[in-house]
């Protein structure tokens, strides 16, 4: 990266001097720092977490070995919210942004209002003959809008129930739970016997409601992108969550560090989520629980229902403002359609790939120590066809925000509030907001 340049310092001093002297030299003394020092092109890649950069760095090494490109990549990590905010602003200003960026799934809808800032990847994928090899619900759907594909994801975020088998075993909880009804029975007994909770209720964020509603085929939007907060599926989930608190066998989720402590001490003995949650989050924050976790499919709502869902995930997008669109696309599509590259992320974070040809790799079904030797891959492969389609909308942010503020949090804090009414209010506010913004 750029060495300490005395020139820049002097330029700064000159600017200060100029302003003191009368500010007349203002425009003259600016000038971008020179990034293209070597002969090689430099592409800039923005991300918001190390863990996602790590596998892509390794993928780039592989890319260099196989394709011998004439460019290097400069990796930059910025804080999560700020990275996405800044991406929006720089793109609007049409300069100062990166060539490639990680875009988180719930942030993506902000970028499809008005002109989309990203390059459509679909045509190139089809030319490469890879289009049909992708598992679309996780690879392209979340970054698609009006038949264009603006990003590509490598994470098949199938959700599972991750539980502390040591604690469950000690309390004699059945590990053959098939339905939510059965789960509630076990949870009640577990709470009566130990005073702890088999699972908690997430009330300040939408993750749990989303997974359990998607399981039933509901969600925030329908296929046309209209908000559907007060759908029967959504009302059913929220009522179930309320009952869990009312009947006393569950508790509201603690925030921040205390949540880690609850999981570590077994006060809360399971969690719902995809691999970035049960592997990434848990391994990073409570490494002491290694070997004490097992995974199982999520209990069904009714016989034949889905045993999984999908939540979160991050895709990679190429910016239209980039000088090197071709180069950037070439690398991004390479890393998402090369089994060897994708398996790096499985090694690092147990991220199951979205590229079908990689599914059969034996590495994916090896036993994992963190899960007490369980073959996690088999389970993910088994449930992933059951993921229901999740629909997006440019108003994802407004909708999820209204849902949490007006429905989820107040209904969970005030058990007398009717879930249907709460969801209806959130739905109404969302519709009003959309009308105001698009009128």
């Amino acid at each position, binding site marked *: 990266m750029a060495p300490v340049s005395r020139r820049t310092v002097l330029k700064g001093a000159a*600017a*200060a001097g100029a302003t003191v002297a009368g500010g007349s030299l203002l425009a003259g003394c*600016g000038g971008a720092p020179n990034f293209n020092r070597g002969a090689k092109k430099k592409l800039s890649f923005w991300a918001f*977490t190390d863990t996602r950069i790590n596998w892509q760095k390794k993928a780039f090494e592989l890319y260099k070995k196989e394709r011998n490109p004439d460019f290097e990549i400069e990796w930059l990590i910025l804080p*999560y919210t700020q990275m996405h905010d800044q991406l929006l602003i720089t793109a609007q200003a049409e300069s100062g942004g990166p060539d490639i960026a990680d875009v988180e799934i719930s942030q993506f809808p902000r970028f499809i209002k008005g002109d989309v800032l990203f390059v459509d990847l679909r045509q190139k994928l089809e030319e490469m003959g890879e289009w049909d090899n992708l598992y679309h619900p996780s690879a392209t759907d979340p970054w698609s809008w009006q038949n264009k594909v603006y990003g590509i994801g490598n994470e098949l975020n199938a959700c599972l129930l991750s539980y502390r088998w040591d604690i469950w075993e000690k309390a004699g909880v059945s590990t053959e739970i098939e339905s939510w009804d059965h789960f509630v029975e076990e949870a009640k007994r577990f709470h009566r016997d130990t005073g702890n909770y088999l699972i908690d209720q997430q009330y300040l964020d939408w993750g749990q409601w989303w997974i359990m509603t998607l399981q039933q085929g509901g969600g925030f939007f329908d296929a046309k992108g209209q908000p559907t907060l007060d759908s029967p599926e959504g009302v059913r989930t929220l009522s179930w969550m309320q009952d869990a608190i009312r009947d006393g066998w569950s508790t509201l989720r603690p925030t921040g560090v205390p949540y880690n*402590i609850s999981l570590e001490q077994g006060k809360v003995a399971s969690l719902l989520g995809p691999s970035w949650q049960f592997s990434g989050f848990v391994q990073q924050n409570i490494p002491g629980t290694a070997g004490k976790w097992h995974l199982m499919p999520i209990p069904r709502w009714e016989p034949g229902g889905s045993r999984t869902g999908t939540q979160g995930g991050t895709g990679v997008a190429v910016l239209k403002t980039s000088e090197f669109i071709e180069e950037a696309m070439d690398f991004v599509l390479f890393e998402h359609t090369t089994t060897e590259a994708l398996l790096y992320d499985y090694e690092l974070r147990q991220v199951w790939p979205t590229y079908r040809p990689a599914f059969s790799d034996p590495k994916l079904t090896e036993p994992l120590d963190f899960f007490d030797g369980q073959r996690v891959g088999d389970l993910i492969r088994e449930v992933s066809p059951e993921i229901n389609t999740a629909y997006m909308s440019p108003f994802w942010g407004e909708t999820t925000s209204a849902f949490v503020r007006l429905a989820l949090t107040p209904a969970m804090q005030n058990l007398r509030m009717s879930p249907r009414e709460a969801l209806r209010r959130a739905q109404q506010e969302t519709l009003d907001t959309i009308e105001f913004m698009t009128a």
Partner: protein
Amino acid sequence: MAVVDKVVGSVRDIRVSLPRRWPGVVALVVVNLVLLVGVFVEVTPYLFMAFGAFKNNEEIFSSNLTLWPHEWTLGNMEALITGFPLARWMFNTAVVAVLGTAVAVLLASLAGFAFAKHDFRFKNVLLVIMLVTLLLPTQVLLVPQFQIMRAFDWFNTYQGLIVPRAVTAFGIILMRQYTLSVPNELLDAARVDGATEFRIWWRIVLPLVRPGVAVLGILTFLGLWNDFFWPLIITTDPDMFVMNLGIASLVGPYDFRYGMLLSGALLASLPVIAVFIFFQRQFVSGLTRGALK
């Protein structure tokens, strides 16, 4: 009469101060105890940060909160210093804070002199405009300011970090107040001697408004040193980060390097503390003698 009053007064003082001696001791102890408790409350979080810098992550996250580390570790500092361009960040922050303060104070004093001691057209209109802009939340201005930065191509440069924030209406209003108290006779005398207005500002006004310079200087320095949003918007090159931005990038929803965050914050706070302790007296006397009188 007055003399009699004074004598009577002092006699009464002596009389009442005898029985008051015991309550006086109580008051002394109570007031100082309360203040010490206050100091404890105010300083503990800082100490928590300072000692936390030497704890490992497990201890920072553990359920029992202790101030003193069980196990001292330099791991955080080491990882921070070897893994990140820390010296560079510190240097950038210092450049921005020192140069920015100098520019801000000089510009504000020069303009404050004009506002306090000269008549010119639109003077009051300009003052009102500045007052209004002082009240507007900075968040709305970020984007237009960003576009200006783009027009000048000032991303990742020191001038981009310094110049836009060196012009605050607050500075002019403050310096105007201080300059008003400079006696007109002094200025006129200098004029008789044939001094130009610039010379008068440099040789007479600036030395006399030193208390104001101290106040504005310290406030500007603190603001620039601790600023987060502006550097965030206009720097993307890690070599141009300032401390605050650098350490904030250590923690995100997927990264939890709190030990390193605390180490960085501790290092970042040391120069500011030094500056404050060093200039504390000037700051307080500046406040006393200036605009607030």
